[in-house]
């Protein structure tokens, strides 16, 4: 939800009128979408669409309910990857044993996503499609080096997470294209993971968050993947920090180098409520804590 854009005059809590249609297949969804000439939104959990319409920040003439489409459901392992259907609810992400085993960053992120009841409705597909830069899952997906499965009238494609989050609430999905699943490459047993965030209150959007994974080979880190969220217009891969880690043992020294390198990775926007230097400072503190507590899957 684009809270920054929240109109402050009040008097807005009920949704404007729209047409509601339920799609039973991807084909039907695409057709209903193109028929509306761009003036339509897909509805999955609805926990971003509904409040933003209630605040009259958005007023599409049509909502297309995609929750019944079979391709969007289920969690499974096939072809060396974990496939998480877009309609998987946050609560299911939190509880799913396959996700806990193969994509632990998502399981670790889930308890930080809002509150229990919101997790019962919000879907991981909706969350990624929304691409809120303060959101946990996009950062986790980025750190996991996952791929986003998209299906549109022109066919199916896999988009690397690195190429998916383009700008504030902007993704690589083409108009009408459906986000159908997330593919996470199966990790080696020894891979280390770490996730945490700093929030004022439990369940609040983070002031800053970190998701990281790394492999250790021969005592040194290889292929560190570090992402931060709530630090800009998209989740951010901290490549300089990754480089500072790669090739060295995970130690207070390498962690300190990674913390120092964050200045190159982050350029937090000017927020009067929380100046960029402070956000960078918190990012460094949190990165240090997350890296020093990285663990393999139990």
């Amino acid at each position: 939800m684009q809270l920054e854009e929240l109109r402050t005059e009040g008097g807005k809590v009920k949704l404007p009128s729209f047409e509601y249609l339920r799609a039973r297949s991807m084909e039907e969804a695409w057709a209903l979408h193109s028929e509306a000439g761009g003036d339509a939104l897909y509805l999955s959990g609805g926990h971003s669409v509904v409040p933003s319409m209630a605040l009259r920040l958005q007023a599409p003439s049509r909502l297309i309910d995609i929750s019944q489409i079979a391709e969007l459901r289920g969690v499974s392992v096939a072809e060396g990857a974990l496939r998480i259907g877009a309609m998987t609810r946050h609560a299911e992400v939190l509880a799913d044993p396959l996700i806990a085993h193969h994509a632990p960053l998502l399981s670790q992120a889930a308890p930080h996503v809002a509150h229990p009841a919101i997790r019962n409705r919000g879907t991981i597909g909706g969350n990624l499609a929304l691409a809120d830069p303060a959101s946990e899952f996009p950062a986790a997906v980025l750190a996991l080096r996952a791929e986003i499965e998209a299906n549109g009238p022109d066919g199916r494609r896999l988009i690397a997470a690195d190429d998916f989050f383009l700008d504030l609430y902007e993704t690589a999905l083409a108009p009408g294209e459906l986000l159908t699943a997330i593919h996470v490459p199966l990790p080696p047993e020894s891979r280390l993971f770490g996730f945490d965030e700093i929030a004022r209150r439990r369940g609040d959007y983070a002031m800053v968050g970190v998701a990281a994974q790394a492999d250790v080979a021969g005592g040194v880190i290889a292929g560190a993947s570090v992402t931060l969220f709530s630090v800009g217009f998209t989740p951010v891969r901290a490549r300089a920090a990754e480089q500072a880690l790669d090739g060295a043992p995970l130690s207070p020294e390498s962690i300190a180098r990674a913390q120092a390198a964050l200045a190159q990775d982050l350029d937090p926007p000017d927020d009067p409520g929380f100046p960029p230097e402070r956000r960078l400072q918190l990012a460094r503190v949190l990165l240090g804590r997350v890296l020093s507590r990285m663990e393999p899957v139990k």
Partner: protein
Amino acid sequence: MKHLLSTTVNGEQVQEAVSPRTSLADFLREDMGLTGTHLGCEMGACGACLVLMDGAPVHACLVLAVQAEGCTVETIEGLTETGAAADLQARFHDRNALQCGYCTNGMLMSAQALLAANPDPSRDEIRDALSGNYCRCTGYEAIVDAIAATASDRAGRSETKTEAAQ
């Protein structure tokens, strides 16, 4: 254009014409007369509107009534009628875990779901389960006590803190 919504509310089959923009909360409150589901923010931030949808608590202010098609919805009125939460309600009463009562519906829904999933929660786990439920009146402690006491009751343990209050 209105939709014909078929859903089950508190065990009763309901067929009603609703307009897509009507939230489940407004549908329950205005069309069904179930005003025990409260509205405190209409943006998912206060928890006053929680109902059980297919057994799980959801914010009725963020669900469209049309999304409840084919679902079972249970409100505080239904929960009271079946007696499923009678012990929890009694503990809230004993412990004075409500003042104005406006948050109570949501607190009971969150508590009921927590205890179903975790019969022996710690105080921190109880507070965590209530993380989306705002209460301006009580300061929360009495609510935590009441839920802890219910957990103990259900596990057949004796509980001292609330007995003192009776």
